[in-house]
């Protein structure tokens, strides 16, 4: 009990004084996971919208791939990206190993399937009669897609939050390709793991509190989006 009490007291002190190690890890987490999620949104929402609207041969297979991607083990992604950016790997020339771009790449591969898959589901969940109504109002295919994205924006926000939630709390891939370099590629999860292994529970608890607050905020926004009233 004493160990826990000491840890909590130290955590409070580190949070109140904005401890540089805690601040660096939190900001690195936000930058890396935020960038990966932004890239996943930029590519995933158009692709998910296309998958939700279009009918083509192989669509089910493609959706199955996307759904499989939503459950990819982070360490497998970490291994794949590590091989890619390894000095002698196909992208070795970029010199990304143990850098934030490698972490962003790995986290993008983890977040994108979630954004694509949930976007496709959101677009497909729109009443088929609404699509007909919009076409009847004179919408082009492009206008239809834009209107459906606007109409499902709260569900898409859920997709974005789910993507962000998946990467902000992952550790395997980030550790493998980022190497946990202090002040650079050390993020909340990798820092918590390191501090715990060293017995520095105060620092680990402070970092965990920040991580939990972020995850709670994501879920709060998602819940609000899902519970909003909709037009008849």
């Amino acid at each position, binding site marked *: 009990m004493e160990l826990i009490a000491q840890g909590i007291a130290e955590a409070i002190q580190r949070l109140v004084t904005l401890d540089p190690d805690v601040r660096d890890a939190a900001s690195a987490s936000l930058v890396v996971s935020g960038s990966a999620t932004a890239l996943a949104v930029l590519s995933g929402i158009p692709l998910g919208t296309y998958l939700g609207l279009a009918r083509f041969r192989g669509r089910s297979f493609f959706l199955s791939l996307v759904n499989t991607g939503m459950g990819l083990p982070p360490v497998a992604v970490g291994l794949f990206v590590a091989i890619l950016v390894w000095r002698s790997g196909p992208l070795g020339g970029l010199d990304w190993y143990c850098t934030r771009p490698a972490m962003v790449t790995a986290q993008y591969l983890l977040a994108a399937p979630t954004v694509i898959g949930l976007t496709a589901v959101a677009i497909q969940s729109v009443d088929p009669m609404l699509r007909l109504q*919009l076409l009847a*109002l*004179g919408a082009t295919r492009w206008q239809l897609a834009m209107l459906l994205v606007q*109409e499902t924006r709260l569900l898409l926000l859920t997709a974005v939050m789910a993507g962000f939630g998946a990467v902000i709390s992952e550790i395997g891939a980030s550790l493998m390709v980022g190497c946990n370099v202090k002040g650079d590629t050390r993020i909340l999860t990798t820092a918590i793991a390191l501090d715990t292994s060293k017995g520095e529970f105060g620092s680990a608890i402070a970092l965990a509190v920040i991580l939990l607050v972020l995850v709670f905020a994501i879920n709060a926004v998602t819940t609000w989006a899902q519970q909003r009233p909709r*037009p*008849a």
Partner: protein
Amino acid sequence: MTVLEASGVVVSRGTREVARADRLAIEEGETLAILGPNGAGKTSLLLALAALLPRQGELRLRGEPLRDELAYRRRIGVVFQRPLLLDRSVRDNAALGAELRGATRAESRRRAMETLTRLGVAHLADRPAAAISGGEAQRVSIARALAVSPELLFLDEPFAALDAPTRESLIADLARLLREERITTVLVTHDRDEALALADRVAVLIGGRLRQLDRTEKVFAEPIDAEVAAFVGVENVLAARVETATDEITLMRVGGATIAATAAPPTEPNVLLLIAPDDVVLSRGRETTSERNVFDARVQAVEPIGRRVRVTLDCGFQLVAHVTRQSARELALAPEQRIVASFKATVPHLLPAHRDLDSP
């Protein structure tokens, strides 16, 4: 002038044909109701006419063959059974069609406010669509369709999801609007009252086929066959044999009774005699009626149907009458009661006998 002409239009699902219109023309300013039971293919036909469903056949809008579906859809308006509003303000919903068709935001909003005013919902303009009632939402949906000044308006059972008072008030307002502004309209409905209230002409669609297309009064008074008769509410379809026919009157035998009709008989002696239940009058005694066809009857069943009461009678043949609730109370109608049933000689409509019905 013909606004829309459909020739050989066929809608299929897989290999099954769900609706067909060999020739259908909608004239400028008229309201045509496509009336039919559930599953008759009414909505499929409407979607095909609105170029919203794949189809065979040809559509011509003001004589121009349909080549570009988007351009065609930008000349029409469609209102569905549900309002299908977007998650935005009432004004923005009403302005959407005009905006999609290239009008500026200001112009779209001006047109939206105009039609919202005509539909009596301008006061809701700033409200979110999610915060208005179903009836108000359907008014907004109609306003949205009218805001694009459509050359042809399609209405797909727009009152079906509304409660009775809301429905009645919207039908009355829409009837006034369509009449005053001479908006060319195709209304799809399964409700006879809606067709009677709104339509200049009625096309009866049963089993995916247009069975009768004529002026509204004519379809309801002179259905073309027993199935159409049953659907337009002519419950009494009696197999009869012509006994004598003069220029003025035709006398027919039905069961043990004789019925007189002013309608000219078909060439064959076996006929179907159609009598609308609303045209049958019930009274306590023969002295109170001057009708040509008067029968002593026994009440078999009395069933309330909405504001009316359906009375099944045995007159030597079975006859159904619809009376008001007040009449039913005054006559104290009950099973086994003796009553007098009568109807004018102008009431029966005669058709050649259907081979499936037994002749007397």
